[in-house]
C-alpha cells in the first residue's frame, strides 16, 4: 500500500518537489511551462545517468567518488580519438563504455578482495582518472565531428516543447535501472548486501560477484554519462564535471536512499535530480541571488533529509523492540 513505511522517504521527496514547483509557478510568470521541465532534463541528463549508477553503489553500502573524473576522462578519450586520430564514433563510443566498465570493475575488485573502504579506493580512482585526462591533453579538444554535432542539435518534439537525445538516453537508463533494481535477482542481491553484508554472505549470496558488478555498473553509467556529456559540451577537457560526484551523492540522498545502504528507490534518485534542477531554476528566475545559493539550499536539504532518515530508522527500531 502507498503508506507502507518504506515508501515514506520517496513520497516526502515527491511532495517537496511538487511544493517547490508550485511555489515557483505561483511566484514567477512563465515558470509553469513544460519547457522549463524539459530544459531541466536537458541540462541534467548526465547527472541523472550518473546518479542511477551511484544509487546502486550506495544501495549496496558503498560509495563511488570517481564518477566525475570518469566522465571527464571519457570526454577526453572520445575527443582525442575522434578528432586527433580520426576514428569513427561508432567504434569510439563502445570502446569508452567498455573502458568505464573495466575501470569500475577494477575498483570493485580491489574494494572486495583487499577489503579496503570504498571511499579510499574510489578516491584514488578519482585522482587517477583526472590525471589521465591531463596526460592526454592539457587544453580543450573541440569536437567538430558531424555525428556529434548532429546528435547535439537534434530536437525531439514533445507536447509543450522539445528535448534532446540525451534526455531520451537518460530516461531509458532510469527505466532500465528501475527494472534491474526491483524485478531481477541482481537487484535483490544488491539490496540484501546493503542491508547486511554478513547476513548475505551467510545466506550464500554471491557477494563478491555482486559487489564487483555494482561498481562495474557504476563505471558503465559514468562513462555513458560521459558520452552524453560529450554530446552536450562538444569538447573534451580535463576540468569537465568537476565536483559532479558530490552533486550525484546529494541527489541520491535527497532521493531517499540511505547512505548506510539497503534502502532506496531509483524513482527517488530521479526526483532528487529534479529537485536540484528546480532549485537552480528558481534561483535563476529570482535573478538577484547568486547561483551559489543553490549549493546552500542543497546543503540544508541534505542535512534535513539525513536527520529525517535517522528519525525514521530510529522509529523502526523502537517499534520492533
Amino acid at each position: 500500500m502507498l503508506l507502507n513505511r518504506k515508501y515514506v522517504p520517496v513520497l516526502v521527496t515527491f511532495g517537496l518537489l511538487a511544493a517547490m514547483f508550485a511555489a515557483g509557478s505561483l511566484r514567477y510568470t512563465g515558470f509553469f511551462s513544460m519547457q522549463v521541465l524539459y530544459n531541466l532534463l536537458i541540462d541534467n541528463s548526465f547527472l541523472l545517468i550518473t546518479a542511477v549508477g551511484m544509487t546502486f553503489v550506495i544501495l549496496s553500502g558503498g560509495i563511488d567518488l570517481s564518477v566525475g573524473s570518469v566522465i571527464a576522462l571519457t570526454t577526453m578519450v572520445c575527443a582525442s580519438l575522434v578528432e586527433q586520430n580520426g576514428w569513427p564514433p561508432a567504434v569510439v563510443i563502445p570502446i569508452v563504455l567498455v573502458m568505464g566498465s573495466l575501470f569500475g570493475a577494477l575498483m570493485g575488485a580491489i574494494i572486495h578482495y583487499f577489503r579496503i573502504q570504498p571511499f579510499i579506493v574510489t578516491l584514488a580512482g578519482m585522482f587517477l582518472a583526472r590525471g589521465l585526462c591531463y596526460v592526454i591533453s592539457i587544453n580543450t579538444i573541440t569536437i567538430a565531428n558531424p555525428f556529434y554535432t548532429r546528435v547535439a542539435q537534434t530536437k525531439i518534439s514533445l507536447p509543450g516543447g522539445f528535448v534532446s537525445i540525451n534526455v531520451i538516453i537518460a530516461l531509458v537508463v532510469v527505466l532500465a535501472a528501475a527494472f534491474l533494481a526491483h524485478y531481477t535477482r541482481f537487484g535483490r542481491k544488491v539490496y540484501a548486501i546493503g542491508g547486511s553484508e554478513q547476513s548475505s554472505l551467510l545466506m550464500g549470496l554471491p557477494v563478491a560477484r555482486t559487489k564487483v558488478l555494482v561498481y562495474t555498473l557504476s563505471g558503465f553509467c559514468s562513462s555513458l554519462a560521459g558520452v552524453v556529456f560529450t554530446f552536450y559540451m562538444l569538447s573534451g577537457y580535463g576540468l569537465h564535471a568537476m565536483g559532479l560526484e558530490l552533486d550525484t551523492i546529494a541527489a541520491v540522498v535527497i532521493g531517499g536512499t540511505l547512505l548506510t545502504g539497503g534502502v532506496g528507490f531509483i524513482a527517488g534518485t530521479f526526483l532528487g535530480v529534479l529537485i536540484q534542477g528546480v532549485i537552480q531554476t528558481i534561483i535563476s528566475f529570482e535573478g538577484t541571488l547568486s547561483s551559489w545559493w543553490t549549493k546552500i539550499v542543497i546543503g540544508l536539504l541534505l542535512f534535513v533529509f539525513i536527520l529525517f532518515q535517522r528519525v525514521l530508522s530510529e522509529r523502526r527500531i523502537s517499534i520492533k523492540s
Partner: protein
Amino acid sequence: MKRSASRVQFLSFIMVLLLLQGCNAAPSVPAAASADPDRPPSIQEWMRTKGEDVRADKPLVIGFSQLGSESAWRMANTASVQEAAKESGISLLLENAEQSQPKQFEAVREFIRRKVDVIAIAPVVESGWSGILQEAKLAGIPVVILDRSVNVEDTSLFVTTIGSDFYEEGVKAGKYLLDRMQNQAGPIRIAELQGTAGSSPSIQRGEGFRSVVKARTDMVITQSAPADFTENKGKEVMRELLQVPSEERPQVLFAHNDDMAIGAIEAIKEAGLKPGKDIVILSVDGSRSALRLLNDGELNAVVECNPLLGPLLMQAAKEIMAGRSLPKRMIPPEDIFTQERAEQAIQNRKF
C-alpha cells in the same frame, strides 16, 4: 498533540498567503475600440482611442551570461554592463556562471526560453559552443560575444565579438620587454603566469608575446604555468616557480593579468627578491591597484585591457534591433602604461 497541529495549520496558512501575494494581476490595458479592422478608423474614433491606447514601447531585453567573478577586471566588466543597461533603459538579465561552461549553457537556454531580444555571452573557454549557438540561431535570437572569443567553424552563429585584441596585448608586452632589454646581454629567462587554461585571453596573450620575443634567440620562456587569473593562485604558482636554484631563477615575469601579478609580487617579496628590480614584471589589465604598484616601482609595465564594454554592448544591441549590420569585431581603444606615466593615469582608472 492538538496545540502543535493548530500551530502548524496557522503557519501553513500564513505561508500560503505569502506565496499568493506574488501572483497579483498585471494592470489591464484598455483594448482599442475599432469596429471594423479593415476600415481605417474615423476621426472621432481616433480621437477617442488615442489617449487610452498608447502603451510604452517594450524595453529591449538583453540576456547576459557572465562567466564569473574571479578578478577585479571581471567585476568592473559586470558593473559596466549593468550601469550601461540602466542608462540606456534596456532591461538586463544577468546570469553569473561561476567559471562553469555547463552553467552558461543553462543560462543561454533559459534566455532562449524567455525569448529575450539579444543574447550576450562572455564565454569562459573557447570551445564547445556550436551546439548552443545553433539553438539560439534556430530560435531567431542574435548573439553577441563579449570579451573572450568563441572557436566555432560557422561564424554566422554570432553577430559580433566585442572585446580587446588579446594578441595585440601580448605583442605590446613583448615589445616593451625587447625595448627594455636591448642593452642587456642574454640569456634572459622569462617566467609566464597564464590565466585559465583554454581561455582565449590566455592563449592569445601567450601567442602575441611569443611572436615578438622570438626575435631574440637568447630570450627563453623557461617556466610557464596556469594560475586561473586569480591573486591566490598567482602567489601559489609563483612560489613554486621560484623554488629553482638561483642561477635558474627567471629574470622576467609575464603575468597574463594584474591579479596574478599582485599575488606573484607577494611571493617574490617572500623569497627575498625585489619585484621590479631583480625581476622585471609585466602584466595586463590596468587596474588601479596595479597602477599603484607600477608607481611604486614594483611593476614595470602594465598593458591596458579595457573592461568597460557596457556602452559598446548596449549600442550594438540597439543597432542589431534596428536592423543595421555590425563589424564582426569591435575593439575598444587600449594603451600600455609604464612607470613614468603611472601617477597621472591612476586618477583616470575606473576600476
